[in-house]
């Protein structure tokens, strides 16, 4: 089986399609005939060139959503197209805040299931899923009628340009979704970050509970800065309020694939490792020789972060 037409949910951040969007478009081209993208928030025209360069021939744009969370209105617009006869074989969305909301809504509207945590997808219609914290790979397939919904984990596919021209933008109407569309954003808060983005950085230095206290995270930031990398964190210290959620690496946080990942005072729970074990090289510093993180580290240092890290920082500073 091949996918005739594939729709990709194109998320836009800072005026550009996200990295995962480009990964999904590349994959869609590989498995499908026609590739079309969906955008919302009123930036369809601004991103049509990039979406086209990665293979989309058409962009469906819902326009500005008037402060509504995208889940309901975007799914309603998509469902209206499908029910009106314009149906794709597959719909690819990222495992992201809005991707999950839209896919969930659409699934219930169209009465079709969603295959989630997808890390592989082939044109015979089977998908691969990382389960049990990434220790097991399951292959699955839909048994019913299309459209098939896939929620794909970021960094599962490479992004490659197709050299296509700008996609044609079609404005689609958002049907009135009544009470379901009542959630409205009243204020946005952007957390300042310096240096490269966590999921794009070549070096990621992450800290965990082994740092002992929030103040000690400054060592992680310092080392990340010296390596022109990004600081990251385990969920334990995000939940403890030491750092914002946007720093979290793992199943419920970011998936990172840097050249080097340096885990400091992190035990290596499966939910953490699923987000970083795709790194090319892993360094772990942990005082417990039995810590699971050592089972995947290329260089494991059994030691105290409070002793090792300051010395690494000092050595790098003296080289600068």
């Amino acid at each position, binding site marked *: 089986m091949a996918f005739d037409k594939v729709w990709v949910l194109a998320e836009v951040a800072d005026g550009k399609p996200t990295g995962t969007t480009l990964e999904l478009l590349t994959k869609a081209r590989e498995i499908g005939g026609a590739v079309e993208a969906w955008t919302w928030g009123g930036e369809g025209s601004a991103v049509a060139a990039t979406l086209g360069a990665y293979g989309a021939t058409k962009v469906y744009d819902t326009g500005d959503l008037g402060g509504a969370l995208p889940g309901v209105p975007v799914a309603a617009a998509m469902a209206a197209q499908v029910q009106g006869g314009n149906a794709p074989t597959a719909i690819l969305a990222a495992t992201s*805040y809005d991707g999950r909301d839209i896919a969930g809504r659409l699934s*219930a509207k169209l009465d079709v299931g969603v295959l989630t945590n997808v890390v592989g997808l082939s044109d015979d219609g*089977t998908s691969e899923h990382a389960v049990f914290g990434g220790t097991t790979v399951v292959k699955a397939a839909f*048994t019913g009628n299309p459209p098939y919904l896939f929620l794909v984990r970021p960094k599962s596919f490479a992004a490659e340009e197709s050299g296509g021209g700008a996609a044609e933008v079609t404005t689609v109407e958002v049907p009135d979704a009544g009470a379901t569309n*009542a959630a409205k954003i009243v204020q946005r*808060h952007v957390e300042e970050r310096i240096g490269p983005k966590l999921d794009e950085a070549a070096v990621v230095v992450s800290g965990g509970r082994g740092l002992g206290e929030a103040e000690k995270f400054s060592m992680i930031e310092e080392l990340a800065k010296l390596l022109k990398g990004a600081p990251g964190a385990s969920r334990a210290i995000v939940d403890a309020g030491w750092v914002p959620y946007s720093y979290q690496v793992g199943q419920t946080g970011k998936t990172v694939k840097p050249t080097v990942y340096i885990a400091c005072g992190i035990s290596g729970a499966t939910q953490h490792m699923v987000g970083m074990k795709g790194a090319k090289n892993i360094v772990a510093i942990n005082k417990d020789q039995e810590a699971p993180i050592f089972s995947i580290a290329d260089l*494991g240092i059994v030691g105290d972060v409070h002793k090792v890290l300051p010395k690494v920082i000092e*050595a790098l500073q003296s080289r600068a």
Partner: protein
Amino acid sequence: MNVVVCVKQIPDPATPGKLDPNTKTLVREGKLILDDSDAYGVEMALQLADKAGGGEVTLVSMAPNEEVGGLRTALAMGAAKAILVSDESLKGADALTTAKVLAAAIKRAEPDLVIAATESTDGYTGTTPVQVAELLGLPAVTFAKHVEIDGSTVKVDRQTEAGYDEVECPLPALVTVTAGVVEPRYPSFKGIMAAKGKPVDTLKVGDLGIEAPAVGQQVVDVAAAEERQAGEIVVDEGDAHERVVAFLEQLKVI
């Protein structure tokens, strides 16, 4: 204010998960416990009902073999009662099927607010709650890191890629909570004793007035993921930092 919390009962995550080699569905045998992710929802619900000065917290769960282990924990935390749907026909249910069952059960409690976790520990599809909301015709605010009720409005700080959004939504509504939204309480001895006498309404799919929903997906293969090999382990004797620096040099990141 009446709050329903969707609570999943799962095998202890400390023991690794298993797939049945024949049916290729998750093995759910032995005792099930309250999913840690849902303990946050239970706590949130208890605090909101308390602040609203009345109303009940009802648990809704779908689980095999009339399992109540996890429900008792949540009842011991302070929930008033539970609705449990347990039916042979639900074996291997996908998220949409689960959502259909949960939605039908939730309807019975006529809640002002439905709370679920952003994702479960064992399945982590993260779609069930939104599917429930759509089936019930409710608005939803997902990824809540702070929740407040102001009259008939729920105010949520919703996590985003860039930070967070303040979102407002009229009730009734569904909210999914992240870990860290509140600190779950430990059940007290009194709570544990009281939980034993709290009502658990155990239903079959037929009791909900719906047919066993069809599952539209299947697992076709299971394999162990490629494992990363462990590299060199160095015990720090005061000079391990040199190894780190040398390693970074070799990779040309410095």
